[in-house]
């Protein structure tokens, strides 16, 4: 279904924040905000859910820990038992302290890479993918607020535009997507 999207452009992040507060106060649902830098405090205003990237990071880290432990157990204890630190015990648990640094590094490696790749995939910003921001100026010094018409069916399109225009915008544009 074709949807109409209103893009309102601001040249100051504080004006945008105040505008978003007013609109949300009236019951408008703001879909997204494009900005050259993170605007502190905008998330709770427009109702962006907390990122779950942290949970992902934990799971990737756990995967890394497990992989490293199983790997080391196979390499150093089972397949080719090693005499570690002059203690030929050939036991995983007794040699564990010497494996901790590697396990730790591998945990960090998995968590960091997993997180980065997830982030790029989820935001659809893998290298070579087309940019999704509505206006290239949002990577410079302008801020754009995105309001979807069919998410705000309680207002007519005209009312919506009028309300947005009151919030100190510098440009407004409506597009079909």
């Amino acid at each position, binding site marked *: 279904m074709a949807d109409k999207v209103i893009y309102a452009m601001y040249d100051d992040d504080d004006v945008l924040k105040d505008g978003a507060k007013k609109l949300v106060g009236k019951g408008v649902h703001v879909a997204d905000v494009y900005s050259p830098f993170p605007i502190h405090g905008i998330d709770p205003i427009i109702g962006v859910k907390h990122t779950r990237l942290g949970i992902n990071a934990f799971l990737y880290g756990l995967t890394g820990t497990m992989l490293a432990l199983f790997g080391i157990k196979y390499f150093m204890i089972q397949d080719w038992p090693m005499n570690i630190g002059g203690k030929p015990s050939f036991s995983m648990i007794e040699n564990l302290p010497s494996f901790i*640094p590697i396990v730790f590094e591998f945990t960090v490696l998995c968590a960091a890479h997993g997180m980065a790749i997830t982030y790029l995939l989820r935001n659809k910003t893998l290298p070579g993918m087309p940019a999704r921001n509505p206006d290239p100026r949002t990577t410079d010094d302008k801020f754009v607020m995105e309001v979807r018409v069919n998410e705000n069916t309680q207002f007519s399109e005209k009312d919506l535009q009028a309300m947005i225009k009151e919030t100190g915008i510098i440009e407004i544009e409506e597009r079909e997507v």
Partner: protein
Amino acid sequence: MEFKISSRAKKVTFTLMIVGLIAMVWGMFTEQSYIHTKMSEDGTQLTMSYPTHNNGENTDEEWEQFKADLTAAALSSHIEIIEPGAHGHGAAGHGEEEHVSHDDHGNDEGHEHGHGDDHGGHHGHRPEPTWTIGAHVIHTKEGMKAWHHHEDQIMPTLKAWVDDHKVGMPDHQHNRFWSNLLINGFFFFGISLGALFYLALHYATESGWGAVILRIFEGVMLVLPFGAVVLIVVFLAGTLDWNHIYMWMDDSKMVLGESFDKLLYQKSGYLNEPFFWIRTLVYIGVFLVFAFFFRKWSKREDEEGGLKLHFLQYRRGALFLVFFAVFSSMLAWDWIMSIDAHWFSTLFGWYVFSGIWISAMIMIMMTMLYLKSRGYMPQINQSHIHDVGKWIFAISFLWSYLWFSQFMLIWYSNIGEEVVYFQQRILDYKFLFFGTFAINFVLPMVLLMSRDAKRTWSILVVISSIIFVGHWMDVYLMVMPGTIMNNYQIGALEIGMFLLFLGIFIFLLLRNLTKAPLIKKNHPMLDESVHHDF
């Protein structure tokens, strides 16, 4: 807003103090002398010896009483103690002890150390009382029933009674008492010192977020004299030979003779009493002067305002960090590491410092939550609490990292003179040693990791309380193995003294908070801090 100590808070702190004091005094009467136990290889004979040159104040009557007590205790469990060839074995036992005290320093250091206090000059002349026993079950109905199929457990049971102080001799030297005084004095001194450090760090980095809670830092910091006095009492008692915490304070180790200690002699350029006292007084003096002036400037800032005092504290904060960087390591060497004077570790100072820091952050977190729950300081919002929670989380990692770095490198290289420190802790304190590490590391890591947890008061209070005790236990494990070896207990004395100190500390902290407004009036970043939000 002015803070007043509520009558309930007064009641709670005084109850802590009184209960602690009673338990502590009661615990002092349960202190027992160290009795060395050794099982024969076939497990049929147990040799007990009482090293007279360790704490030579027990009389022969007490030794005989101990023997009678053990015999009576055995009888009530249907065991009869026999002394196989009392005379011949006594001589053999004596020879064995000779061997022990001439052991090399590398592997028997803790042993050597605990015994290393000459007392009254009868060292080497009076033979160590030694008692070798065997035992068998009394052939009555009850006896046969109680020990049926468990005959091999008889000797280990007897050994455990002596090791676990079910039967023993009173300790007139109060070794446990003095060790506990050092533990608690250092732990609570460290909390104040950590707050002072963080206050200086806050100024030196020109941080804004914490401006509303700086008075809490000041309150904790100003309890510094309390810990300092306790530490000085312990050191003074050591210097006067009232306690034997520091083996290097023993003069007889410095002159050629039976108890000459070459390692300590070579270290005596640094580890000698005059220089130790100069260093101690300089550390404490510098800390107290900085704490005094930070408080003075902070109060004056309330009246005058302006940036002049702020930038003065900024510069002095940076200066303090320079002193602290050196002193925090050195005081750990002098006060804690020199208990095991034969041993050394280069990162010991940072390890101790991280423990100090986290204890301070926990104390600050608890004070914040307490004040806020009583309706004070409405300016503190969830973001401030979240930030202090982050510190607790982060420093837990720092502490664990340093603990593990120290342990792993020494464990891996396995050099006798280094590994002895951990050998002692693993042989005698295994459960406490690894348990403390596991709790202090895993608990905050798993439960404080998520953002929501750091904003949930109940989780913060529970975890902070547990790792607060955990870090007390960490100090306990730094001190006890070096001072009373495997003769340790966690009983009324330990718990009582901890509660006593906690009560005094909290009371002094609350009293400090009453002496100035809870929020600084003219801190230039106050507004930023009030609106701190993320």
